[in-house]
């Protein structure tokens, strides 16, 4: 599909299949955060309001400039878009809503980018707000409406047998991965240790103490092979990300951070949310094969090679998801990620720093949006002690295969 816009930022995008130009013309123009913490007394709506005000100030926009909402919140873990529009006094002409689930982070940002590119809105606010410490019973427990649906939830839940939490899905995938490739829990520890090292440079991060291999190995087993520090924080906080079309973005307070390529969520019988294709979980085939062009279309669309990506950001709800995402996007081959993440390669100063603010494992679990804010700070050159030198191209990509690439 083609759109024509009179004024586009430089840097055209191309479809991986047809080679046609794709006119994604969207930029992140503002970011806002509430405090991140555990046991915060504020409502989700209040946390979201704080982040919303912060994002408007960051962008130099007024509340009345926001005419679109892309909500990564909603039932059963929060309010819907209409309560936000009503509660914040907005006048909205475009809405996308998913519910609060890692699967829909990328989707929420992509819909905002598509909406401004198509002229359905001028400025879309992506809103997420979590109060996980208050809603603990939801997360794999008796209150987990999502995981207790017919045939279980999306992470392979089997409630009658006591597999009821998302961590269980990551565990069954990692167990098979370890069997196939000889990967070990020691190797897996490199992921949460890297996230912790990043958190130690970030004053907003919840986790303040270093994590050693010994501490990782002696921590309690949660769902084998996942130990305590392989599982993300249960925390509270909100993030708002404002997205505008290129012509609008140029006139605002901050240097625009452009969305230069995207690829959508992968789904089907050969997919399991917490595994690369072909790992043999649920009804997936049990044959790994090389990535096809369509698996990597985000790079073609962005017109950048993998080698040009200076940092990788991902939904690190559980340590294995980081390794699976690296294999999805071809940073290493099938079965190679456990060795690949060793030796500081994924830490600041390494070849591919990952989640440089500490991620869900050590900064805070704000549904991935804390890491998206970090990408924006990096591309503005405003990441302080965590700054990647001359950061110009960063990738967001998840274990379930969706992605976007941002550029300064």
């Amino acid at each position, binding site marked *: 599909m083609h759109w024509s816009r009179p004024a586009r930022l430089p840097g055209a995008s191309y479809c991986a299949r047809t080679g046609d130009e794709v006119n994604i013309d969207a930029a992140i123009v503002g970011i806002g955060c509430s405090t991140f913490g555990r046991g915060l007394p504020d409502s989700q709506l209040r946390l979201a309001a704080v982040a919303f005000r912060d994002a408007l100030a960051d962008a130099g926009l007024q509340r009345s400039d926001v005419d679109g909402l892309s909500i990564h919140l909603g039932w059963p873990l929060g309010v819907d878009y209409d309560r936000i529009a009503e509660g914040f006094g907005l006048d909205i002409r475009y809405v996308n809503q998913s519910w609060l689930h890692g699967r829909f982070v990328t989707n929420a940002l992509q819909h905002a980018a598509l909406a401004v590119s198509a002229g359905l809105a001028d400025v879309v606010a992506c809103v997420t707000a979590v109060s996980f410490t208050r809603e603990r019973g939801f997360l794999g427990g008796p209150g987990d409406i999502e995981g207790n*649906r*017919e045939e279980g939830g999306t992470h392979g839940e089997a409630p009658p047998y*006591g597999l009821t939490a998302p961590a*269980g899905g990551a*565990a*069954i995938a990692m*167990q*098979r991965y370890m069997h196939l490739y000889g990967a070990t829990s020691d190797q897996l520890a490199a992921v949460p240790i890297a996230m912790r090292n990043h958190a130690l440079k970030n004053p907003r991060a919840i986790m303040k103490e270093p994590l050693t291999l010994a501490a990782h190995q002696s921590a309690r087993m949660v769902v084998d092979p996942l130990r305590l520090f392989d599982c993300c924080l249960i925390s509270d906080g909100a993030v708002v990300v404002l997205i505008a079309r290129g012509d609008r973005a140029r006139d605002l307070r901050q240097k625009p951070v452009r969305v230069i390529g995207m690829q959508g969520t992968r789904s089907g*019988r050969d997919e399991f949310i917490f595994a690369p294709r072909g790992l*043999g979980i649920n009804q997936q085939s049990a044959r790994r094969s090389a990535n096809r062009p369509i698996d990597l279309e985000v790079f073609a669309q962005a017109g950048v090679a993998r080698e040009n990506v200076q940092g990788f950001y991902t939904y690190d709800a559980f340590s294995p998801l980081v390794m699976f995402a690296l294999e999805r996007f071809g940073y290493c081959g099938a079965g190679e990620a456990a060795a690949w993440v060793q030796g500081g390669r994924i830490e600041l100063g390494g070849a591919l720093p990952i989640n440089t603010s500490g991620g869900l494992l050590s900064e805070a679990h704000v549904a991935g949006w804390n890491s998206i804010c970090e990408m924006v700070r990096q591309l503005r050159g405003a990441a302080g002690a965590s700054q990647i030198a001359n950061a110009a191209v960063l990738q967001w990509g998840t274990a379930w295969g969706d992605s976007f690439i941002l550029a300064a």
Partner: protein
Amino acid sequence: MTAYDKPRPRIGPDNEPFWHGCRAHRLMLPTCRACGEPHLPPGPVCPFCFSDDIAWQAASGRGCICTWTIVHKAWFPAFKGETPYNIVQVELDEGPRLTSRIVGCGDQKIQIGQRVEVVFDDIDEELTLHGFRIVEP
């Protein structure tokens, strides 16, 4: 005797024959009459050829463990007294994979590739759960 307070399967039109089969101690698979392929989880159409012509056929009940975990944390109060307990995915000889549990042996015997066969556990008047036991070579 205390009431069974663990989660029960959510039984609807698509999976009712599966759980009804368990009551009769038979592992039933929805199987396409058009292309011959069985599938799980039970759906209203064949996921391979999209035919509506689904027949329920008894499976051999045999397969092998393709992945597993041991759950240490009690997310549900009703499982608190049983931790740590195992969960497995079994690849049935017919092809589809089923999430279940291994009974009758210590969890240390659970290995990927291990041959298993189905057993049934009558919970109460309405519910029978499938499980698997290890088949010694």
